[in-house]
């Protein structure tokens, strides 16, 4: 499958997930958004070597993935974009930071190894948290949350238009590329001679479409001001959900919970 058709498929897929009528999907979008930011903030604020403390933070994705019926495999796929840079940055820590901190049999564990694992764990946890947000919240609702955060309506409208036309233009680009590759079967990408005209054609068509969209808006009373629908109200449940998780995050951030619980058993 080409990159373009993959992207089209992915948009459909995420959208289907976000549009399910699950209880996670019904939580107020701003609550989920704030919670996600708070979670990611907490995760990345863990010290460089605090692997054990950070490991406790996996409680959130663990619970939500199971209760929310989210696919873990599907979320792993999202790691592909973010993880390479994280790995590149983290992979060198063991070589620079060789302070021994313990042994495992004959194998010496160094501080660098711990900081590398911590960093990668951070990478994984943050992406999982983002995935939880986007797999249970539609873009429309996220845009609504952005508006509640006082992002200008002007910008939110533009964002919704981009979202609306991403699938249209992806399909258009996909058709162009299919037509191209049918006539240039042995080429992997676009030949440099048509770099300009192929992309340029799509650009001009997009501009024309923008013109038509503007006309369509004007014909229906648009005067530069955008009117949104009615509010989605947060219920008591939503606040409770937010409060519950924030307490858990704070607890895991401030106390070595795993060790304390483990201590009960190991003594």
């Amino acid at each position, binding site marked *: 499958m080409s990159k373009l058709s993959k992207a089209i498929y992915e*948009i*459909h897929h995420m*959208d289907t997930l976000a*549009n399910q009528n699950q209880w996670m999907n019904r939580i107020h979008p701003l609550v989920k958004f704030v919670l996600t930011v708070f979670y990611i903030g907490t995760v990345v604020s863990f010290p460089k070597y605090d692997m054990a403390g950070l490991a406790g933070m996996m409680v959130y994705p663990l619970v939500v993935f199971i209760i929310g019926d989210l696919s873990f495999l599907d979320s792993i796929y999202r790691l592909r974009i973010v993880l390479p840079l994280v790995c590149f940055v983290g992979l060198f820590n063991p070589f620079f930071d060789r302070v021994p901190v313990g042994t495992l049999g004959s194998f010496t564990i160094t501080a660098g190894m711990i900081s590398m694992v911590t960093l990668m764990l951070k990478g994984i946890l943050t992406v999982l948290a983002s995935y939880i947000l986007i797999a249970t919240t539609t*873009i*429309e609702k996220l845009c609504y949350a952005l508006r509640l955060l006082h992002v200008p309506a002007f910008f939110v409208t533009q964002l*919704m*238009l981009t*979202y*609306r*036309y991403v*699938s*249209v233009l992806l399909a258009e680009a996909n058709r162009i590329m299919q037509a191209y590759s049918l006539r240039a079967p042995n080429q992997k990408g676009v030949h440099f001679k048509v770099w300009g005209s192929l992309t340029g054609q799509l650009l001009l068509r997009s501009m024309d*479409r923008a013109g*038509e*969209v503007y*006309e*369509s*808006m*004007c*014909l*229906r*009373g*648009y*005067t530069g001001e955008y*009117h949104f*629908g*009615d509010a989605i109200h947060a219920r008591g449940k939503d606040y409770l959900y937010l409060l519950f998780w924030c307490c858990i995050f704070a607890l895991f951030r401030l106390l070595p919970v795993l060790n304390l619980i483990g201590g009960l058993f190991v003594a």
Partner: protein
Amino acid sequence: MSHIHINVDQVSFSYEHGEKILEDITFTAREHDAIGLIGANGVGKSTLLKLLVGLNTEYEGSIRVEEIPVEKATLPRVREKVGYVFQDSDSQLFMTTAYEDIAFAPRNYGLSQAEVDSRVQHALEMVHIEHLRDKQIYKMSGGEKKLVSIATILSMIPDIILMDEPSVALDPRNRRNLIHILNEFEHLKIIASHDLDFILDTCNRTILMADGKIIADGATREILENRALLEENGLELPYCMQGKQTC
């Protein structure tokens, strides 16, 4: 004359430094008229429709919609009365779901949420697509998009509907469905198309254009049966009149 009508008087139009696209167009459309605007590619059908809703106001001559002259200052009033359905539904539908798109116009007119809701519901019922209310636009088929496009116009409760090539890219069933729905709308409609069978099924009056001029204006049957006239102007008899099949 009832209050619903359009008067077009000696209208000419050309783009900047370009050749004339429309020349000396004159006609009057009255309530209950269903006008088919036919002609080969590039004769100015779409341009004419766009002039009627003021998407271009730099024309010569006079266009009046319900006695309001179509010019920059009067556009909001004109556009409340006239709905225009684009050929490309993807350009017409710019919101994410059918509901949002159909609610766009009523919201712009400052209606209350309850009124917006009832308008949307009414529009959906008129084209029989209540089930599509919350569906995402990009997941819809071409036929569904066309019907939603029409609903977005109906939520404005217009007196007049203009349509540009409505039957393009519809399968036979959707096409028949659309014909039904259009026939239910009884005010004034103008449909630009070169699908002559479609015009035959939906319109009682036909205007034939060629090279930016009106060549013929009369009852649909009379014009569409006139093989010589049609062929002279780059068209052919509707299929159902070609004797290959009966309709």
